[in-house]
């Protein structure tokens, strides 16, 4: 059911600006999408290797530097395409609901 949605949401969250992995987790938890953190890391690595994400090392006040993720140009392009797909999907669902009632 959630196929591909998680990737879409992660891209959406990152599109708002440079963000740290545990903050992404916090957002996903708020959206009740992610139950455990461990699944996020392979996903981020995959998106990064696909060229949609990149990251910067940012010094932190407590402990070693942290990875901050941001979207690349390709990432933005894909996100636009996903937006269109999502709108098409929701349009289809909305119209289905409306015609039913």
């Amino acid at each position, binding site marked *: 059911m959630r196929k591909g949605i998680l990737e879409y949401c992660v891209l959406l969250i990152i599109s708002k600006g440079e963000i740290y992995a545990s903050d992404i987790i916090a957002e996903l938890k708020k959206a009740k999408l992610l139950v455990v*953190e461990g699944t996020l890391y392979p996903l981020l*690595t995959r998106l990064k290797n696909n060229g949609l994400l990149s990251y910067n090392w940012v010094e932190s006040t407590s402990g070693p530097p942290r990875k901050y993720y941001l979207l690349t140009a390709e990432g933005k392009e894909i996100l636009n395409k996903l937006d269109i797909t999502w709108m098409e999907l929701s349009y289809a669902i909305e119209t289905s609901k409306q015609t039913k009632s």
Partner: protein
Amino acid sequence: MKKTLNINIGNSIILIEEDAYEMLTGYLNEIKFHFSKNADHFEIVTDIENRIAEMFREMLLQQQKQVIGIDDVQLVIAQMGSVKDFENADEAEGGIYEETISGVKKLYRDTDDAYIAGVCSGLGHYANIEAKWFRLMFLVSFFFAGSGIVVYLIMWILIPRAATRSQRMYMKGEAVNLHGFIRNFEEELAGNQLISRSRGFFVELAEAVGRIVRTLGKTFFKVVAWLIIILGSCFFLAMLVGMAVFLGFSDANPNEYFPLNIVNDAYLSSMVFAFFVALAIPIIALVLFAIRVAFNSRAINRTVSFGLLVVWLGGVMLSIFYITKVASEFKEEAEFSQVRELKKYDAYTLTLDRSRFFSRADSVKYQINSDKYRGKVILNDMDDPYNLPRNVRLNIEKSENGLVTLTQNNSSHGKTFEAALSHAQNIHYDFSQQDSLLNFSPFLQLNRNTKWRDQEVTLTLKVPVGVKLILNEEMDLFSYSFDYWSCEDHGAPKAWVMTEEGLKCTKP
């Protein structure tokens, strides 16, 4: 009271209780195993470890404590998720995200995974079958009047090469998720069209031929290397077994045969061992080199190979030492002659007598006293170890004093003159006269366990002018001593006569 450990996780030093440490290690190992199939496993696991370290630091800070306990680790694992949770997440991958990125599958040639032009691997991607099956199919079809070659060439020309990243992605379709996705699609397409134009069919053909030659060459070297490994190992094993057998039974027969019968018993064993080392180590080196070619890896390290070199040099030096020692046994030469007068007849018949006279040692050796041999003579005993090398010469000369004589000259080599003379004296040669019949033995005999020191017997038969000699056929064994074959008389015994000028052939 609990034991605590200091661990370094995600570049942070954390103090942790022992049972908590056990649990954490188990958990991390599970995670490592789960992601080990993933190409990016190292990065993923590092990210997870970093996050765990961060959680630990937060816990220590918030609860104002020094040590991570088992409860903390359980909390972290619950938050991070178990391997089972990851598996569920893996199943949820794909969907609209993948569809948005991946295109429809198209047929291209995959030049990144090509033996010739990538036709087979392209077909493999298209049909979602491993490329090797198409390769096998084409290989088999080559044997049917080469029809596969034509088909292959046509496909080569017709199917375009997957040049751009997007083309490669189209070629692989959904089979490979997102790998190699278009980076600046238009830009790259423009760039690659230039390259595509410059790569004509013939450029590709030349490259393909080069690739085939390289592959064949590599295969050839590997086959040769394998042959060397197998043959070398067999040879080495045979030598090892041979030496073991020899050293185990050195008092048995083999040392009575040439060339082992040259070497003194005292150092025969060590000499054989030295030879073994000098010969076996190059074979080992050859096999090791072949292993390196075949497997692209060193079988032994430098120290061991250096050790082998030292041992080999030792073996070679020892071998040379023994060879010189044996050679010194041939330094001096000694000879002596014995003349015996034969009963006078007008004509003699010379025959070869293969039967042997037995010494006392022989009687023991062959158990002559037993019933088995009573009343028997051993004939044609060619298997006898004293056969080789046989050094008996026969000269036939004119007698000046009217007497018929046979001179037997024994000669031998030795370390000293005395030794050489003693060797010469120990030569036993059988000759007998039965009226006008002269029996010559084809070989000289040495005492048992006497070493070969180039012992020779030279016989000189002197007969007066006018005496006839009939040479039995087998006498051709001595044919190098005089011109035996000039008397062309096939089948019948050769008849000769002594003249003033020497031995002449007479037609009977």
